[in-house]
């Protein structure tokens, strides 16, 4: 469903991705691992449509469509979802207002009826409970004053609520203690489905103990340097990225 070919991306004239190839099929979970600064977040942003990135070469096809030509909200409507590494704090926008506006925008796009306040409340409460999110958190302004863990849970709540076809999780595990990590992993596993693909970006292997990927890719120097099965994650954990980087050099 996602086909990235020879993707070259630069920021302010500086090349970040240099010929990245990646192919993810429907129903699959792929992990992208790599050292800090290797371009993982850049990849997640370019797929979700953030401004400020120049595509110098290559393409990304989503169900055969040119993904990079779409506006961010069009990508969301088509089923692309990014769980942010650093979720944005928005003072003055209530978390519930935000969730409802987002869900109803997507439902409208899919030709479904919008949920009224009561229906919406029921759905959110149920999904929030599963993620250990309390009512008080939902009453606050979006991500404002949330702890790192609360922000990540809120991303997972949005994932569960918006039910995307392609979910990109950018370092969702960072900043989580082991209990929170398990809750998040359970949430993600519950969303595993033959109709959904996931791209799990992570720096460490520990999340992949709980969410076992179909494929693991190593992103370094702006390209996929190696791909393998889930055992590759463990190998990286044991030996670090140095070997792969020197192999490629």
């Amino acid at each position, binding site marked *: 469903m996602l086909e990235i070919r020879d993707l070259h991306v630069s920021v302010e004239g500086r090349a970040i991705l240099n010929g990245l190839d990646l192919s993810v099929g429907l129903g699959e979970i792929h992990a992208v691992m790599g050292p800090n600064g290797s371009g993982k977040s850049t990849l997640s942003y370019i797929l*979700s*449509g*953030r*401004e400020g990135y120049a595509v110098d070469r290559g393409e990304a096809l989503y169900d055969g469509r040119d993904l990079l030509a779409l*506006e*961010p*909200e069009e*990508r*969301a*409507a088509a089923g692309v*979802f*990014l769980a*942010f590494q650093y*979720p*944005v704090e*928005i*003072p*003055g*926008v209530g978390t519930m*207002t*935000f969730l409802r*506006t*987002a869900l109803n*925008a*997507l439902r409208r*796009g899919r030709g479904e009826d919008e949920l009224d306040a009561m229906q919406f409340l029921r759905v959110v409460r149920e999904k929030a409970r599963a993620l250990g999110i309390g009512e008080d958190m939902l009453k606050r*302004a979006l991500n404002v004053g949330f702890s790192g863990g609360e922000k990540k849970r809120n991303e997972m709540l*949005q994932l569960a609520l*918006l039910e995307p076809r392609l979910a990109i999780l950018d370092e969702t595990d960072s900043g989580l203690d082991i209990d929170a990590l398990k809750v998040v992993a359970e949430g993600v596993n519950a969303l595993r489905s033959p109709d959904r693909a996931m791209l799990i970006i992570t720096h460490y292997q520990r999340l992949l103990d709980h969410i076992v990927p179909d494929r693991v890719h190593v992103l370094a120097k702006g390209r996929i340097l190696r791909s393998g099965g889930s055992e590759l994650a463990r190998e990286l954990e044991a030996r670090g990225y140095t070997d792969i980087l020197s192999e490629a050099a």
Partner: protein
Amino acid sequence: MTTRVESSGVESWREAFESIRAALPGERDVAFEAFAARGFPTNRVEAWKYTSLRPLARQRFRPAEPDRDAVVPFLNAGPRIVLVNGFLREDLTTVPVGRWAGPDNRAGVEDEALVALNAAMAGDGYVLTIAEIRDEPIEIVHATVPSPTGPVAQSRNRIVIASGGTARVIERHIALGKGAYFVNGVTEVEVQAGGQLHHTKLQEEGADAHHLWFMPVQLDRDAVLESAVFTFGARLSRNQIEADIFGEGATLALNGAYAIAGRQLADHTSRIEHRAPGATSRQVYKGAIGGQARGVFQGHIIVAEGAQKTDGQQLNRALLLSGRAEIDAKPVLEIYADDVQCSHGATAGDIDGDALFYLRSRGIPANSARGLLVRAFLSEILDETPEDALRRAVEDRIDAFLEVGA
């Protein structure tokens, strides 16, 4: 016969003044001459550096006349005071009020040409005196009926909170119909020792209106004034507050939220003079500016010698929604005491790109996302407003603004 060299626009005003002079109570000539000596302020007058009234000075206005029949819409079913074209409508007013009976040379006549003009020509105005604790908000409507003659409505009003009194007051400024007109009004506020006034102004003048409103404030010992202004209407508007804090331990909170577009100009000017120790003043003004509109904020805090332990803070924030939107901000702190805490801050910028992307990435279309962020920006001021009907009215105005301006 004396010959006068009069600045532009003054002659037609002299004509207008003389046409109604005989019917006005009290001594008016001193006030009119004070106006005539200055004329309409231009950019060369420091306090009007960013807001020129030159275009206004060139227009001819006729003194508005009482309108006994106009139908006036209300926000609340509660107690109210109603003025149409600057004249009290006794038939619609349900609160016992006094009437203004002519100038007593108060309220900056000597400094401000427009205030002098108001003192010379105002034909009416309410005097509201509160000595008890009143929970129910009093709605005060200043309505103007536009007409091809270009009416000028000038009322002079006064709110007095006596010691031990507490009141909530909502002043609304509206147009009854379409067309040009000019409002040049004054509301004097006096809060006596220990009194409290919660005041909200909702300015929804017509699109072709000019609105100048002056609010001189006097705060005695431990007096509290919270005043919030919401500015949406008028081609050009200025909300000018001059507060004299002469009582120890008084509290003044001035807030403002505005949303303007097209070629609107909204000026919020304040001058707060701390003359007594231990008083607090807080100001937060936030504006969403679209199109080619321009916001002006001038905040002047003076702390007199001996006004120790003064706490004076002011903040001005503007959201510039188009490349041609503008804000001119001029904060001034003038401090003659050594043990004080005063600060000012100002920010101006576009909508936060990260926030916008976050919302859009969740499927919220760009327009709605911008709307959410503009509403969020202004909500800080609105959230302080306890009256539901007022809040809804402001929200409706913000929605209408987002349709055209953002």
